[in-house]
């Protein structure tokens, strides 16, 4: 049992559950930042210290981007759109937490049914990656504010990245860098889009946008 990696993985689960239960958008952004930092630490812990230069550099890039740049951009958007909290999500916070626990149990069962071809750093990584992906999806479908949905998208990507860490030796660095660049641009564009939605309609509630044509 790789203890340090396990602690980080459990921390990922906890940040996901926190996101499901938090209503303040600022706190949500900070939680996602923490999750990004933990995620950046993950590949460093897998190797047990001896790490090539480009791997370390990549981990540092991940930590800087996910723990620093994305939260900073989202915080700036938050200040501009002047929306402090998710008022009425489609699914309430208590229910979201309960659903999260249920998803977690399903993911752990799923993880036990999908053994990876070769031993990975921790048996937890597949279920946790699944759980992160699922809770990201759940955030996207259950919240009203565009900003929370962007956070859900980020969490979803974090889950995919965690899955990639499990196969870190197999995955070429270039692919990872490409994905990172993609989400960087996506967050950038989404921040601007949210700003424009807000300026046009004075709110960022996505469910009201379906009535645009009338």
């Amino acid at each position: 049992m790789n203890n340090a990696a396990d602690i980080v993985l459990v921390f990922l689960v906890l940040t996901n559950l926190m996101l499901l239960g938090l209503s303040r958008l600022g706190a949500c952004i900070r939680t996602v930042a923490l999750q990004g930092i933990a995620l950046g630490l993950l590949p460093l812990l897998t190797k047990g210290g001896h790490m090539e230069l480009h791997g370390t550099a990549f981990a540092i890039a991940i930590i800087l981007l996910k723990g620093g740049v994305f939260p900073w951009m989202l915080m700036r958007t938050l200040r501009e759109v002047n929306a402090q909290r998710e008022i009425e999500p489609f699914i309430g916070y208590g229910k979201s937490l309960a659903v999260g626990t249920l998803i977690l149990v399903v993911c752990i069962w799923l993880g036990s049914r999908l053994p990876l071809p070769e031993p990975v750093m921790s048996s937890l990584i597949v279920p946790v990656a699944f759980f992160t992906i699922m809770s990201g999806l759940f955030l996207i479908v259950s919240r009203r504010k565009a900003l929370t949905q962007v956070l859900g998208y980020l969490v979803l990507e974090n889950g995919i990245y965690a899955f990639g860490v499990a196969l870190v030796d197999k995955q070429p660095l270039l692919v990872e860098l490409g994905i990172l660049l993609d989400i960087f641009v996506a967050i950038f564009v989404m921040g601007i889009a949210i700003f424009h939605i807000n300026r046009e309609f004075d709110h960022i509630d996505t469910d009201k946008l379906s009535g645009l044509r009338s």
Partner: protein
Amino acid sequence: MMTTLKLVHLVLAFVAAPLLLGIINRTKALFAGRRGQPLLQAYYDIWKLLRKGAVYSRSTSWLFAAGPWIGFAAVVAAATLVPFGGARAPIAFPGDFLVLIYLLGLSRFLLVLSALDTGSSFEGMGASREVTFSALSEPALLIALAAVAKYTGCMSLSDMVVATVPHLWLCAGPIVVLVGLALLIVFLSENCRIPVDDPNTHLELTMIHEVMVLDHSGPDFGIILYSAALKMWLLGQVLVGLVVPAHTGVLWVDTLAVLLSMALLAVLVGIIESSMARVRLLHVPQLLVGATTLSILAVVLVLR
């Protein structure tokens, strides 16, 4: 030798319990920039109340007078089941953690009954809140202890704590952290500390524990205060016993380590109370569901 040691530990718990309140209050005073009440203020209060006479309303029955004392007896019985650090409890048998939880439940039940006995709608409100929140925090406590029981393979609280030797931290760190967090939230909620209830308010419609005991006076109220302090000490000892593995084998070092970690727990509670606001009443269930989720996560990790 072992019997005397256990008795000494028990007496230590009885004597030191109100000191926790003193430490919490001094920590809060320090944060607020005040001098604060004396460390032994809780002892003075209890002693003063015990010497006074009690006033009984004409509308109350014997239940009102009996409630605090039977509740106290239940907490004393619970004290014999709680291990002191790495040492075994005076009474230990498989499944004793269930008895512990239900003895504490019994004490709360009697307090609720005597609150309802006054017929005051104000006290009825407090009683209703108390049972609602305890019904939510009980599963968290139970599932957390079940996770530890499953992991260590011991069904007795004493065995669990003895099995929490330092290597548990090394090979099951996540589980210890989750159980510790869940128990901390339960500790705060059961003892009516700040994220759930504010022990300083007496005239607010949102208070929980304090409103139930408004009509008690004199020795009855004193014994309620003492039972609450003892309950806090017991739950704190369960938390400390599972999280802090103080098993050096040297007797006085172990005892000192437990006392020190209890003091640190009190300081931690003081810091939490100074830095957090009380959660809105409607959001308390969410906090407690969160604690239950942590416990369930611990169980899932154990069963994996």
